[in-house]
């Protein structure tokens, strides 16, 4: 449901400017923003958080070029922002390597670039890199499943995986982390059917996965948005002999986990709040400030978030989801 309650959550996450430290009002800053098409709850939240954070600062002008999955078009959008002479750029590239060249160009044009989530292949192309931890996410999911299996005393469990779009590097990192964690615990990965981050593809992939594996013990689904379809397919098939772990941490998933009435027992986060952080730091960079919690004069160059594991126990504390 698109209840307004989750919209409130989103708003609550955006901090109002404080009167002191790096939050003190400063000179006007224009922040340019470019991200892939918001065709997914997580990506939509990225833009929403960024926009709302920017609106919280009266001196920040937010110049967002929204959404495309075509790198060629995204490059041109960044070019437009450079033409527009913004002060700082926040870029979540559709493909980090493919947008490196334009990142470098922007940097050379004297515009500091904050590279969000998908890294440029050249550190000279950005001023700051903020990202979630895809590999860590896979590890967290793997560890949780390994724990559960051990607790249940299942030997040789059948563990399935439903990744998102398989050709994306982030998917590959997540899968790698998952596999490594399972291997470390002496477990083996079973059937794997990729979906495409959409509800429908989740349903399709899960139907096929359930068919391929008549008996399962655990499944990791990379993404809670496609998870809606996955859960429905599981319900349709009337299967409940296994546990499922979600990914990215959507509002619906957290609610389901708290209610504990589906096979979904946990989700590992990959928080879209990073875009709000990126806007704050962009403002700091634009105004030549540091971060008030660090003693450094300037904002550091790399920030990697951690992936939290949300279970029934801590679901109530988690506020930073995305609506789906």
């Amino acid at each position, binding site marked *: *449901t*698109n209840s307004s309650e989750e919209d409130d959550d989103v708003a609550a996450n955006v901090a109002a400017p404080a009167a002191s430290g790096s939050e003190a009002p400063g000179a006007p800053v224009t922040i340019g923003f470019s991200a892939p098409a*918001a*065709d*997914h*709850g997580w990506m*939509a939240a990225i833009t929403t958080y960024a926009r709302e954070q920017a609106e919280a600062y009266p001196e920040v002008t937010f110049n967002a070029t929204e959404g495309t999955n075509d790198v060629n078009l995204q490059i041109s959008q960044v070019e437009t922002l450079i033409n527009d002479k913004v002060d700082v750029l926040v870029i979540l590239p559709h493909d980090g390597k493919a947008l490196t060249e334009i990142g470098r160009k922007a940097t050379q044009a004297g515009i500091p670039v904050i590279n969000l989530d998908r890294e440029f292949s050249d550190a000279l192309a950005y001023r700051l890199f903020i990202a979630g931890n895809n590999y860590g996410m896979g590890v967290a999911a793997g560890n949780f499943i390994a724990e559960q299996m051990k607790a249940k005393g299942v030997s040789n469990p059948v563990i399935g995986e439903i990744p998102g779009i*398989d*050709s994306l590097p982030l998917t590959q990192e997540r899968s790698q982390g998952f596999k490594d964690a399972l291997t470390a615990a002496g477990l083996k990965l079973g*059937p*794997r*059917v*990729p979906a*495409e981050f*959409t*509800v*429908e*593809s*989740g*349903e*399709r992939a899960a*139907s*096929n*996965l359930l*068919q*391929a594996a*008549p008996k399962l013990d655990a499944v990791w689904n990379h993404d809670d*948005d496609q998870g*809606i*379809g996955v859960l*429905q*397919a599981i*319900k*349709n098939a009337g299967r409940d002999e296994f546990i499922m772990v979600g990914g990215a941490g959507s509002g*619906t998933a957290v609610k389901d986990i708290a209610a504990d009435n589906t096979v979904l027992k946990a989700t590992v986060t990959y928080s879209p709040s990073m875009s709000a952080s990126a806007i704050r730091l962009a403002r700091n960079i634009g105004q030549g400030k540091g971060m008030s919690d660090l003693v450094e004069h300037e904002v550091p160059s790399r920030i990697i978030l951690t992936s939290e594991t949300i279970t029934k126990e801590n679901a109530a504390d988690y506020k930073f989801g995305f*609506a*789906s």
Partner: protein
Amino acid sequence: MTPRNEDLGAAAGAPVADEHARIERAAAESTAPKSAFARLADSSAGRNSGLVLALVVICAIGLITKGDTFATTDNVWTILRLAAVGGVISVGMTFVIIAGGIDLSVGAIVALASVWATTTGTQDIGTFGIIFTSIVVATACGVINGVLIAYGKVVAFIATLAGLATYRGLAENLSDRKTQSIDTPSGFLDFFGAEPGGIPVLVIMFAVVAVLGWLLLNRTTFGRRTFAIGGNPEAARLAGINVKRQTVMLYALLGFLCGIATIMILARTSAGTSTHGNLYELDAIAAVVIGGTLLSGGRGTIVGTVFGVLIFQTLNNIFTLNNLTTSTQAVAKGLIIVAAVLLQQRVAKTSRS
């Protein structure tokens, strides 16, 4: 006042019995020298013999590689359930393509209808509200497409490309890009998720649509007119067929079937979202064309389309069962499609000579 033809015949003085004999002889002419096999090849099933063969070969691959899971009843239902949604749209697409048109907006229509049918307001009305909204919204989109094409004279490709952008954009605006679950307690999910006698309701729906579609195309004036305007629109117009009205009705029919598909996808995923139906247009067109319908219009069959849909879904299923990576799947799919078509041609040729 209109002279019936019988009178004319009588006036000509030719004995009726004699004429009949002549016609019969003439009709026999074309079948006479044919073998039993050739006659089969001429029948509806036979015309699709290449497709049947392709499907058989694919199933054989499935049996060989994963016999234990592939040949189970459960798996057959899985394939059919997956085929159902796209299948319903493909049946409608067959009509539009036979009429010489194309519709790129079907996926977007499903997205818009699914979002509209799952707004809180609609859900409050209950099952009926969801069904009604899906059908009405989707049919309305179809009508808009049809009117633009028939009366606005916009090329179908462009009109429905614009529709693709517009409808999906509207769906995103309406849902604010959030997935909307169906959770108003209503009989909707129970009804469409049911499996009376072990047969999933969705599969029954697909079967009913296919059969009705076949009847509509092959046994009614509507179907005949569809072939006519695809075969030669100018000739159809001069034969007194209201080409514009028929065109609108065809796109409306496809829209209506998109509405049915929306209900099915809602039942399957229990949620409406603007990402539903992504690239359905390509899948549907591919199934129709693989099924032997000409993209240039005037020729095509529903049976072929159903085979096309089944071939694609069975392939997907076998790939999944064998745990192929997406990339390998893509390569295999490409090669198998070409092989199937080449095979089909070979069969068609043999059966003709």
